[in-house]
């Protein structure tokens, strides 16, 4: 029997709209509700690996998955240069610099501004381009509370509706970049299974167009 085409599926913020898309015909995949991290759909010749968002590029880059879905934020942070044939119309947001709503000028005099973020590379690049020194505080999550706990002056994070930002007393200083989810493909999978990959891409392309 033919090996299934393996997709790295992010469990983060775009999991729900992505699952909704995949549940539509002709794929009609509805197997994402259990606790298993490997979901086989043999009748469609597909296998899904449910992963942390930041791990998706690694799985695809190293050939453990043939395809994957990842945000442009994650792809840029991981310097992932894999082909990205499709962009999804949902889950779009922005990567922004945030400051406490109470602070008038978050850029301190006499020392580098301290910025808490999950995106160390993107944040460093942003401040490099501005020609400003920044002291990056790498965090794995809940970055919004960092200024309140005096861990940082600013936060660099994703903003979608802005609810989390406002609930934590932050306001947007500047948008750094737009963010959207993309389908990425392993070059090795293209070499090994070109027809299968493009047949799947055409199916997905049709679903996005309908």
């Amino acid at each position: 029997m033919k090996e299934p085409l393996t997709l790295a599926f992010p469990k983060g913020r775009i999991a729900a709209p992505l699952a909704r898309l995949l549940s539509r015909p002709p794929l009609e995949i509805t197997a994402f509700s259990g606790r298993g991290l490997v979901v086989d759909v043999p009748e469609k010749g597909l296998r899904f690996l449910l992963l942390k968002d930041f791990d998706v590029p690694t799985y695809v880059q190293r050939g453990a998955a043939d395809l994957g879905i990842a945000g442009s934020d994650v792809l840029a942070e991981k310097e992932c240069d894999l082909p990205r044939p499709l962009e999804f119309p949902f889950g779009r947001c922005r990567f922004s610099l945030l400051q406490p709503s109470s602070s008038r000028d978050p850029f301190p005099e006499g020392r580098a501004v301290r910025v808490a973020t999950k995106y160390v590379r993107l944040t460093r690049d942003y401040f490099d381009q501005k020609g400003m020194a920044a002291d990056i505080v790498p965090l794995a999550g809940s970055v919004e509370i960092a200024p309140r706990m005096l861990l940082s002056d600013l936060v660099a994070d994703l903003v979608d509706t802005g609810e989390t930002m406002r609930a934590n007393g932050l306001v947007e200083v500047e948008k750094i970049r737009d963010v959207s989810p993309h389908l990425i493909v392993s070059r090795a999978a293209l070499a090994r299974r070109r027809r299968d990959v493009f047949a799947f891409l055409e199916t997905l392309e049709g679903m996005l167009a309908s």
Partner: protein
Amino acid sequence: MKRRRASLPTGAAAYVFEEATRRRGAEDRIVAGLRNAGYQEAIVPSADYLTPYLPHLSAREERELYRFVDRHGDSLALRADFTIALARHLAPRLAADGSTDRVFYRGEVLRGASRDGSSTEFYQVGAELLGDPSPEADAEIVERCLEALGAASRGPAHVVLSAVGAIEEMLGPEMTGSGARDLATSIRERRLSDTAEAARRVSPAFAGRVRRLLEGDLPADEPLLRQVGPAGATLSRVARGLFGRTDCDVAIDVAEPVSRSYYTGFFFSVYGESGGEPVAGGGRYDALYAAFGSPRPAVGFALGLEGVVGA
């Protein structure tokens, strides 16, 4: 008491016992095959002055270098690639009559800035054919590469053939200049919707061509290959030579990205049955020897034993 550190730096590996024997055995078989085919060994230093290499490196390749300053204050780099080192050390010793030379090499290369803990140290074996600009020379190098892979591992090889700048050439005459460059970038990134939209603005037939370039797998008698010059002839020649083989499959995919910036025409990647990166690759670099004072066409390949023996 000082704690003993058992871990290795990211991307480094050590091999002992049977694993070391297996790797050396594979290397010996590859080397025996190359010697039988008339290739002579060349040995180049593992560290060298930095400046002769810099003009031949992309920004990314330069970032990958392990550099250091020696006790005399000179900037040095550890070997990150054999081809440039060979050109630097071989060019002054080549005969002025432009004769054909066949050389091979083996040894470690070190490339830093690894993503996700992937290897930084590779054991490469490779071969170069100097002085022959013909598609037959390109075909010989691909053949030597597949022989070497066959000597080191089991399992089929997936060969992808491409050429530097081929997409831009194939988009003409309908699209040229910056428009062609932008669309070529989108094709290399396989962006389905962006490319379709840009190509439809030209004509439905052009949109069909763009889609075929994006999907890869052009036939060996593809008329568009005639627009790519000598590299197009090589793509046809090599693909025809490989069709029908049982140890590999082949695709002409001009959207495959070039792996080293010194390639000037035809290049290829070989993928194994597992892993995400090519296990071998090669191509033509006709400008490199001229830069070291001995103009001469050249084509070569290299494989990394880690990917081949571990596959």
